[in-house]
């Protein structure tokens, strides 16, 4: 049996551990914390499994690889909801909806009446939208917890310790999944700041993620059930500030208010800020240097692309198959 060390128990590390375990490896995982938590940026994720919507601005592989995600996650956690996703725009920004439709696939156009059927709480506020019926979403924190619990019960050893990838690699095959923490060795990795809010608003019920297009403040809101909503997310280059700015909070909340004024009564129960690890093309990378494999750069696509990234790491190790996101030259 092959012994493999995985460093970093965020979404990348946990998914890779699962894929390697399923191929028969014996896994030891290191993380500076005992449980998934706010130290990992996947803790703050929206949890949208929306490859078609992401295709509006992301490159082709995101759509293709991302379509593996919903099925993979459904096998790990019962928190996957397959209700599709809905894209709307305020009437004055109709041109953004036209553009979004032109850049994506996998949707059908829906008019006011159907929007009202899908989401009664939005019905009379939007007259046209795009419905991506096959997309899904999940609850990221529950999904991480389920994944970790499954690994633990299948024999993975979890060690609460900060581990040095190079030192581990001297003793055996090691996967560095530290996300932005790996900035010390990955010079082309940058942080893209994201800010999000969790709202409690029992007056509103939504059944699927809603994206509201706006030229300056595109917003998504993901229902977590029981009147809880995740509202996100900013994308700010060139900043790794630790706190949400007043401007970002104002913009996020105004957009939610425009979606439905009842959000004005919501309570803000959490404010999240983190840096998404990203390479210059915003695509994930697998790099190998002897016994050390680095998997990183999931950017805003952690839950969407981690299953495909994990599959590719497993294929590299067990089948000697070079993954399409392999990047030997930079290793």
């Amino acid at each position, binding site marked *: 049996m092959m012994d493999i060390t995985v460093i970093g128990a965020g979404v990348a590390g946990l998914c890779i551990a699962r894929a390697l375990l399923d191929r028969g490896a014996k896994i030891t995982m290191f993380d500076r914390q005992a449980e998934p938590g706010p130290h990992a940026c996947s803790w703050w994720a929206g949890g949208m499994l929306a490859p078609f919507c992401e295709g509006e*601005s*992301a*490159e082709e592989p995101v759509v293709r690889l991302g379509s593996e995600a919903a099925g993979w996650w459904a096998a790990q956690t019962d928190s996957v909801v397959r209700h599709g996703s809905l894209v709307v725009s305020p009437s004055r920004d109709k041109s953004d909806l036209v*553009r979004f439709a*032109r*850049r994506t696939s996998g949707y059908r156009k829906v008019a006011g009446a159907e929007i009202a059927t899908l989401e009664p709480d939005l019905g009379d506020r939007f007259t046209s939208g795009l419905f991506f019926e096959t997309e899904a979403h999940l609850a990221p924190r529950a999904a991480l917890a389920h994944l970790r619990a499954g690994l633990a019960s299948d024999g993975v050893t979890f060690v609460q310790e900060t581990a040095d990838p190079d030192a581990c690699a001297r003793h055996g095959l090691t996967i560095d999944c530290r996300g932005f923490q790996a900035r010390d060795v990955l010079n082309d*990795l*940058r*942080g893209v*700041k994201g800010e999000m809010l969790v709202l409690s608003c029992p007056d509103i019920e939504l059944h699927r993620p809603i994206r509201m297009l706006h*030229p*300056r403040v595109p917003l998504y809101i993901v229902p977590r059930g029981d009147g809880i909503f995740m509202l996100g997310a900013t994308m*700010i*280059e*060139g*900043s*790794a*500030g630790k706190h949400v*700015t007043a401007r970002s909070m104002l913009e996020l909340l105004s957009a939610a208010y425009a979606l439905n004024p009842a959000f004005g009564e919501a309570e803000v129960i959490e404010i999240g800020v983190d840096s998404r690890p*990203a390479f*210059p*093309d*915003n*695509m994930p990378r697998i790099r190998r240097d002897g016994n050390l494999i680095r998997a990183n750069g999931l950017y805003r696509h952690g839950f969407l692309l981690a299953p495909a990234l994990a599959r590719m790491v497993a294929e590299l190790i067990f089948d000697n198959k070079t993954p399409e996101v392999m990047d030997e030259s930079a290793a």
Partner: protein
Amino acid sequence: MRDFYGTRLANGFMLGTAQYPSPAILADAFRRSAASVATVSLRRESGRDRQGQDFWQLIRDLDVHILPNTAGCHSVKEAVTTAHMAREVFDTKWIKLEVIGEEDTLQPDVFGLVEAARILSDEGFQVFPYTTEDLVVADRLLQAGCEVLMPWGAPIGSGLGLNNIFGLRAMRAHFPDIPLVIDAGLGLPSQAAAAMELGFDAVLLNTAVARAGDPAAMAEAFAGAIRAGQQAHAADPMEPRDMAAPSTPVIGKAFLE
């Protein structure tokens, strides 16, 4: 082309760096268009944040002139503070000065603009003010120390093109020695060509390229249009006329019947 504070640019294309799908595509857009100036908007938090410098480094690596801007500033004080940070981060005296006066049209607050331009010019900045085509405001900006003017084509991000050709032509005629840049509102290369045909020295745009389906290809298309417009202006275009003027003489033609 006129000089911009003593700097001669290789071409009249100033390209923004916001809203691209990824930094790699941004870099590609600059490579394919050979745009000579990159404008960068500076968030106020970034100046004191060493970790957040990765993106600025990507911009420096483009190896073009950098024109930091004060995008999103609504007051003189905000704009001046942002300009100070920009000078620190990019080590340049150039600053594109934006003082926004109205949230829906993002049109400049010309009163605040003149005030901020005076403060910054006095401090040694070389100010590129984002203004309207108003000649009186333009004059005040020059008095405040500006040696470049950047009138809008249309509201920022609207893609409507040159909204007031008459006003822009008047501005060009009124300030024959001042470098003029059409800043904001362009959506298509033909509009950029039209601006250059009017005798403007450069165009500055961002959204039209960054939000195109293929930003790098669109950047190249704009570069071609800017070159064509500039060449056409330099070639002294014909004057339009009301009557047809045959290009081949008709008198003396043989009748074959």
